[in-house]
């Protein structure tokens, strides 16, 4: 039994350590040391694209459908079914695609990193790297962070497109109470390029935190194969909460006092 306060106490204890670890990893990327292993970064980027892209897009697609049907039914209930685009545009771009991206990234990439680095740690491969004169922080963590920064913005932009397509399918093709032209007129009117940029910033903050938390738990795993499993589970729990907090802070900062809508004066 873990006890009632185990989870918050655990997080409070490790939060400063995770922050320090993350800052160190980011410094290794910013001061260019990671470019000694640029090939490894590219390899990590390739692994992200080949291994995780389809699953992430799949989840975004499902949640885009969800936004579409909720929007269609909600706007029907207020007597304006042709305005379903408002709901879909805000739901897709501002909230749900970043969340879906964060969830799947935490599940697929974050826990994957913990499992991989954790098994390296407990089979003493990380110590072996150090003995050979390779700094493991750079070779294992900084390269993964750089790989994520290289690929994920583009993956996210395509994910937004996929979410839009799913909402279109749900509203126009499935529910069918608004024509394609009427839907797109409203849909594009209620968003603009800065919204896209804000959404991208939100998603990339989530991605950075997820990769860093994954690296921390994997790099510091202990206690045999069982310890790797426990560390993986713990990283997932922390990542989920951090994704929600970043999503809320992003909304508060970017859209908190400014609806950014073409209504009123």
């Amino acid at each position, binding site marked *: *039994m*873990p*006890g*009632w306060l185990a*989870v*918050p106490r655990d997080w409070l204890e490790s939060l400063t350590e995770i922050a320090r670890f993350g800052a160190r990893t980011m410094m290794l990327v910013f001061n260019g040391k990671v470019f000694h292993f640029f090939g490894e970064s590219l390899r990590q980027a390739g692994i992200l694209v080949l291994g995780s892209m389809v*699953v992430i897009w*799949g*989840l975004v697609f*499902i949640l885009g459908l*969800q936004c579409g*049907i*909720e929007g269609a039914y*909600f706007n*029907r*209930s*207020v007597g304006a079914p042709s305005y379903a685009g408002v709901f879909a545009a*805000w739901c897709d771009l*501002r*909230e749900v695609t970043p*969340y879906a991206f964060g*969830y*799947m990234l935490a*599940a*697929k990439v974050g*826990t*994957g990193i*913990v*499992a*991989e680095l*954790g*098994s390296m740690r*407990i*089979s003493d491969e990380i110590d072996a790297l150090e003995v050979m004169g390779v700094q493991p922080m750079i070779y294992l963590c900084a390269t993964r962070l750089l790989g994520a920064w290289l690929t994920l913005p583009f993956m996210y932009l395509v994910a937004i497109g996929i979410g839009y397509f799913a909402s279109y399918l749900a509203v126009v093709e499935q529910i069918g109470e608004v024509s394609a032209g009427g839907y797109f007129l409203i849909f594009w009117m209620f968003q603009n390029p800065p919204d896209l940029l804000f959404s991208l910033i939100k998603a990339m903050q989530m991605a950075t935190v997820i990769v860093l938390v994954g690296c921390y738990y994997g790099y510091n795993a202990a206690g*045999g*194969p*069982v310890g*790797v*499993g*426990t*560390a*993986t*589970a713990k990283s*997932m*729990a922390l*990542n*989920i*909460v951090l994704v*929600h*907090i970043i*999503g*809320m*802070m992003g*909304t*508060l900062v970017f*859209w908190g006092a*400014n*609806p950014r*809508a073409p*209504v009123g004066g």
Partner: protein
Amino acid sequence: MVRAVADRAFLPAKSMFEEVGNMMILTGKTLTAVVRPPYPYGGEFIGQFLFALQLSWFPMMVSTIAFGFGAPGLQAANFLSLFGSLDRLGGFFILASVREFAPLVTAVVVAGVAGTAITADLGARKIREELDALQVLGVDPIKNLVVPRFLSLMLITGLLDIYAVLFGISGGIFAELAYNQPLGGFFATLFTNASVTDLWGSILKCTIFGAIIAVVCCYKGMNASGGAEGVGKAVNEAVVIAFLGVFAFNYVFTQTLLATHPEISVIK
């Protein structure tokens, strides 16, 4: 050459279907083990229930308040404030929180916190060969390990849904307060729009989410293999499959509920 290409395309699909089939078989075996006597799983059931509750209560609270305040709270309040109708936020929270986000966030947190812990636990037992030892002793691992986890996760996901609704709505209250609005209008539209159908739909949905998460996580844990990386990999795969299963089911369920109960989408 042709065979190599065909294998490359065909084998992943085949293994995926096999996996889904195996999970279905595990579900069937679990369900028969639930009803067929004897019932030795009482103590383990309570233990697992408390375990999941102790792990999830804090992440649940933070996540649902953050989600309720950000996504449906601030964004909808933004929109409503343009029309000067911020009191309508309460009515919107029935759609947003009860019908949609509370079950989803509950499923995500339960899968990410309790489900991963279950997979790590069972995976550890698998690779230490404890499960085989149990079988040698004549103890059925499905009846004694999977069934209590299945039942307790179903129950706790359904109950945490109510918890998520409460904290999601309190996130909405914070959003309303952030706009310096009196709360009377919020509660008035909240309670006039609330319907029993929405609530049972939400709880039923969450209970089935719990079943999906439990089966996927137990299956992956009991089939962990492959040395040091095995348990971590099992957790990774379990949470990915659980997310996809839950979200796909959510789409079908919400669509069916909205189409078969048109009265819940009438704004009062």
